[in-house]
Every structure is written in C-alpha cells, then in structure tokens.
C-alpha cells in the first residue's frame, strides 16, 4: 500500500521532467492510432474484436471523436476501453496509451470493411484507419435445429417447484451463456413441445456482460401447467453451435428435469 503513492509520485516526476525537457511526443503528431481486427478471418456470426490503440503525447488531454467509428454489416457491442496507467516509450517518444474496443459479429459473408474514423487530439486531428475482415459462410452439415450460433454455449436449467399438484403451475428457466451470438437462439421449448403439459413461454431476455470479453446471457422463462398426474420428464434441451476452432458443429445440452405432479389442488384454498 505504501508503494502506490510512491509510484504515483515517481510518475509525476518523470512526466514533469519529460515536459521540461520537451521529449513528450514528437512535434508533428500529438496522437498515433492503430486499428486491428482479430481474427482477420471469421465466419458469419462469429465474434471478432476490433481494437483501436491510441497513443497520445504526454500533456495532450483533450481527445475526442470527430467522426465516430461505424461498423456497417456488423452487430457491434461496446467493450470497456483499456487505459495503460504507465507511459510507454515507442520510437524514442513517451506516450500515454489507451485502447477503444468493440466486439463485432458479421451479419453476412464477404469482404467486410470497417470504415476509418477521425479523432480530435489536442489541437490536431488524427485519422483512424479502416479495417477489413474476410467473412466466410458457415460450412454445410449443420444440424437441422441449428440457429446460427457460433461459439461455445453453456446451458443451465431450473425448475421450481419440481413437485406440484394438478391444477398448479411450475416455472422453468433455461439460461444460455457464452461469448457468441446467442440472441439468435429461438425458444428451445415449443408451446406444444411437451406432451401433457401446457407451456406458456414468456418473452426471452438477452443481456450482454461487457467486460474484458463479451459474455452473452439469454434467458427463456416458461410456465408449465401439467394436464395429468405422474412424473413428467422434461427432456434435455439441445442447442447446436459451431466451433470455429475445431471447424465442427457441436451440441450443447442442458440436464433433464422431472416434474412430479400429484393430487388435485382444491380451489380457492389450495393448500
């Protein structure tokens, strides 16, 4: 804990010396930018990262968009930027370094271009170069119920309560989690998909957890109303997805659940 103030003091000292000596950035450029897209080749729907590295001269505080980046033909999700706390030296010049990031999902195959942008950097403007991504369609051989999900999926289900009486309902959650385009997944349980059970689907919700990586969570909620007594098996749900690393289609499955239905609820005082 003692080291932090000391390091901060050292940093201020270095910066003051740099400013005094006039070595903070070259006189011709107050900012440098570099754009990269990783990976440079991807499948339709696969997540790729667009990163803009910004080097600004020490002493330059005002950096803002003159022309914000655009991502036509992509679904773009914002990711938190990264700021390097320490100055770096590149080509003999000291810079402050930060990164602007997006997760991109290509909507169509082809050579997709991310146009350039423009930054105001101190009193100058700095060009941000465009980038190109080679997007290929997904290969043949997809399972029939494949919905276009690229990237791993984890399936979690919850049934509450798992024991009810006839005339009552149970809530069933299906939560999909992964870094891919999970918003493409349709309801894994059809309203007429369970024999002897009325299924009432609620509107699915999609949440994006933007951290160092992007995590997508898609939640499906159902009300299940059994029409007969006994043990009702909810079959394991399957979510096909494409694994770009292994170039293969895979199936994510959730655990099977059993809903036990016994007795008849007496209305209105059904307990």
């Amino acid at each position, binding site marked *: 804990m003692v080291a932090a103030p000391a390091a901060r003091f050292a940093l201020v000292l270095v910066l003051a010396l740099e400013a005094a000596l006039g070595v903070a950035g070259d006189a011709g450029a107050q900012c440098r930018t570099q754009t990269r897209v990783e990976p440079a080749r991807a499948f339709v729907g696969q997540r790729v990262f667009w990163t803009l590295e910004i080097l600004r001269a020490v002493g330059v505080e005002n950096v803002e968009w003159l022309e*914000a980046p655009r991502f036509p033909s992509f679904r773009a999700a914002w990711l938190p*930027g990264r700021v390097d706390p320490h100055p770096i030296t590149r080509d003999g010049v000291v810079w402050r370094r*930060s990164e602007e990031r997006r997760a991109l999902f290509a909507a169509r195959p082809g050579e997709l271009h991310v146009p350039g942008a423009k930054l105001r950097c101190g009193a100058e403007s700095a060009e941000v170069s465009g980038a190109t991504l080679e997007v290929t369609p997904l290969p043949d051989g997809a399972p029939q119920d494949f919905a276009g999900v690229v990237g791993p999926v984890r399936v979690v289900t919850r049934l509450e309560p798992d024991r009810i009486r006839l005339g*009552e309902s149970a809530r069933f959650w299906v939560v999909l989690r992964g870094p891919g385009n999970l918003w493409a997944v349709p309801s894994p349980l059809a309203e007429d998909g369970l024999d002897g059970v009325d299924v*009432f689907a609620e*509107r699915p919700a999609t*949440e994006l957890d933007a951290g160092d990586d992007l995590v997508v969570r898609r939640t499906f909620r159902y009300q299940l*109303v059994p029409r007969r007594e006994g043990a009702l098996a909810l079959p394991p749900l399957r979510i096909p997805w494409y694994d770009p690393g292994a170039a293969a289609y895979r199936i994510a499955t959730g655990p099977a659940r059993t809903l036990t239905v016994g007795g008849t609820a007496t209305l209105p005082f059904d307990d």
Partner: protein
Amino acid sequence: MTGPMLEYPQWLVTVAMVVGGAALLLLAARFGARRRGARLLGPRAPRPRADLLPWLALVALGVALVGPRIGTRVERSSALGADVVLLFDTSRSMTAGDNPPSRLHRARRAAGELLARLGAGDRVALAAYSGHGVLLTPLSSDLRALAELVPLLDDSLVGTEGSDLASGVQAALGAFAAERPRVLVVLSDGEDPLRRGVAAPATEAARVATRVVTLGFGSEDGSRIPDGDAWLRDRRQREVVSQRDAEALARLAEMTDGAFFAADRWGELDLDAVSASIHRDVAPTAGESVERSVAAVRVAPFAALAFALLALDTLGGLSRWRGLALGASALVMLGSVSSEERAIEAHLQARPDDARALLHLGIARAERGSHAEARRAFEAAALRARDPDLAATALYDLGVTALEERDLECARDAFFDALALRPRDRRAVYNLEWTLAALATRTPPPPSARPRPDPDAERQLQPEPQPAEAAGDPRPLTPEEARRWLESVEDDARRGLRSMGQRVPSSLRPSREPGW
C-alpha cells in the same frame, strides 16, 4: 335480445325533470287562473281551459329525445369481415391461478388462438383496462403482428389499479370507424370490487351498434391473488378471493345481442363457437349478405305527434314558447342529431377508403361532442387521403379535437404533421405554438426509475478520449448511421404498449377503493 329500451338513456333524467316541471307549472297556472276568476266573477266563473295539449306535446318530444326502442327492423350486412376489438382485463384479479398458470395467461392464449381463426377480411384492434381503459392499437388486418403483441399484455400494462369495465369499453369503441359488423370481445373475469354493473358499458356499446362477446376466465369458486411472494389482502388483512362474475359478463353480452362463453377450469374455451359468434353478421362469400333483426329506434313518430299536438293547440294563436317547442320538435323530427353521421357511415360502408367522407364523419362526431370517435375518423381520413391538402385538413381537425380532450401531445403531433403537409397553414402554426406553450408549462413526468440497458448502442471512448457527440450539438445521422441505429435498437414492443397503457386520463385520481 334484451337490450336497453332507450337509445339515449342519458337524457332520461333531464327529460323527466323538464316534463315534470312543465306539468307543475301548468297546474300552478291553472290554479292561479281559477283563483283569479273566482275573485272577479264569483262561483259562476268559467273553468279555465285545460292546457293539456302543449304538455302532451312536451311528453311526446321527451319520448322522442330519449330514443325509444320499439319493435325490430331488418338490417342487411354484406361485409366480408368484421371489425373486432379484443379488450383485455389486465386488473390484478386476472393474475389469480384458478385457470393455471393465471387467468391472464389463459386469456392471452385464447386471444392468440382466436386471432388464428379470424379471416382475411377481419380487422382487429387491441385494448386493455384495469383502473382505466386504453386503446392500444388501431384496427389492423395484420393479425400476425397483433398476435405478437398479445403475449406482452400483463397486469402492469395499464397504470392504474381497478376494474373499470365501462372505461375499457369506451376506449375500445373508439377503434370503430367504418360501418362494418362491430364486435367487442371482452376477455375478463368480470369481477368489479366496486360493483358498478354492466348497464352503462352495455348501453354505450349498443348505441354504436356493437355486439359484445364476453369470454369469462376464472372460476365461481374463486382463487387468491398473488402479491409478490404472499397473497393479496384487503384493508382488514383478509386474503382476497377473486371470483368470476359470470352473471355480469352474460348480462353484458345479452344486452348487446352478443354471446357469453365461460372458460373451463383449464381456461379453455370453445373458440370455434366464439369465432362463429364473431362472424355472425359477416357475409359468407362476396355478393351474399346476412340479414338480422335489430331493435328499431322510433324517434320520428313521437316527434311528429308532438308537432301535431302543438299545431292543434296553436290554431288559436302562436305563443312564443309554443313556437319554440314547435321548432324543437321539428328539429328532432328532421332527423335527430345523428342522421348525418348515419348517412356518412352508410356511404363509408360502400367506400370505406373515402377520405373526404371520413373527414366529414369526424366533423359530425366532433360536433356531437364524441371526440374519441371523431379522432378515429380524422386519423383514418389522414391515413387514407391521397390529396396532401385533405390529409392536412384531417390532421388539423385531429389536433383541434385532441385539444378539446386536453391531449396536448396528440395535438402537437397532429399539428406538426399537418404543417409538414401544408407548411403555410397559419391556423395550424398558431395552434401548434399554443400547444407547445401549454406543454412547456406542464410539469415534466419523473424520469424512468430504471432505464433500459442498451448494451448494443454505440458508446464512445471512456474514460478517455471523450466523445464529441456528448459535448457538442448532435449532428444529423447519415442514412447508414440511421440504419445501424435502428438495427441496434432492441425491438421491444412492450415499451410501446406500456407507454400507451400508462397514459392515465387526467380525470383519474388515485383511489382508495379496492383495486383488484
């Protein structure tokens, strides 16, 4: 059909008071004349002439004004589809679980399946009510789009608590414009803790020739109402048990020549029968027509009788008030207040897309004071008008009518649209400025407590560099940016519906009455 006996029952009390008051005045005048005669001429004074004829004329005029329904007349319909409004009860009692998982779940499912049974010629609108009623969508033949909206209706849609069926019916009736078979389908448990009855909504629906088909959810045994993790309790901390009021729903249907269908314990209905009931007045194929008997409103005979009585009475000299009464009776006889409307509606039956006729219909309705119906007609006229000038006029009239109802937002939008079509319309400019000034003086609503997370939206560098858009004036979007922005916006129709549902009429105040 055991519908209401009067077309305009709202006049009944006024007419009774006027007729009764006139009778008292006549008796007093006659008594005074006898006393004066006796004082001047003694016991042999002649009895004053009974002033009975004007009073009888007044009675006949009063009867004509309330529009008695006597006998039936045959109505012929050649329409190939019906105009249907699905009115959802979204009060808390609809969350009861006696039709598992809840009455509202079952009502929504029934509505979805009913939409699948309606035909290409049908047009459907959605409405909802709890503490007040709201029309959520206009009539549309895009039944698939409506089916996607139905699952979004929940008990928090309408901003006020309660079960004001009359308000719901009134809002739903605002959807009807053209002269086609009109059916209002009420999906409800029928329960109203305030026990306001169904006479008022039934009369209102019957007045605009709308049949009400009621679908009753819940059970007569009743069920408790969820309240978070517990059960809803009343002021005395007793658990509230909500029961289906099948009698009220059946009566509402009966009074409007409709039909009542009760859901079974699983919330299921004979939807084929419901669909058949909705299509009762729909011609099976083009060129054919359906005939049915409807109650005949007899205004003219009573007005004519009043006219004749006054004419008889005034043979000896026309006094001022008798002349006035004569004029009034002639006015009533000449066609009553709604004859122009009926003529236009008849015309619209043949040419439903006649924008000019719709405009005139709106004007007639506005003059009658029926602003909600007038607005529907103006909106329809504006949508159908090919002539921009005509559309601008309809929008201007829509704005004026909205101002009459103190709906400043609607008025503002209408005047804006009118000016877009007719930029030099000084009246629209003046009204728009007035409306904007009125809106500016209004207290702004509180900000939303929980803004919708918008992770897909383009955010800018943080913590640095700072976005230019955040600091400076917003620049116009390029077409590509606009397209991307639209794509990034989550298609959340529930927000739109909720926005409609939360529009609480200014007349409503928080109530301490039970509100489930």
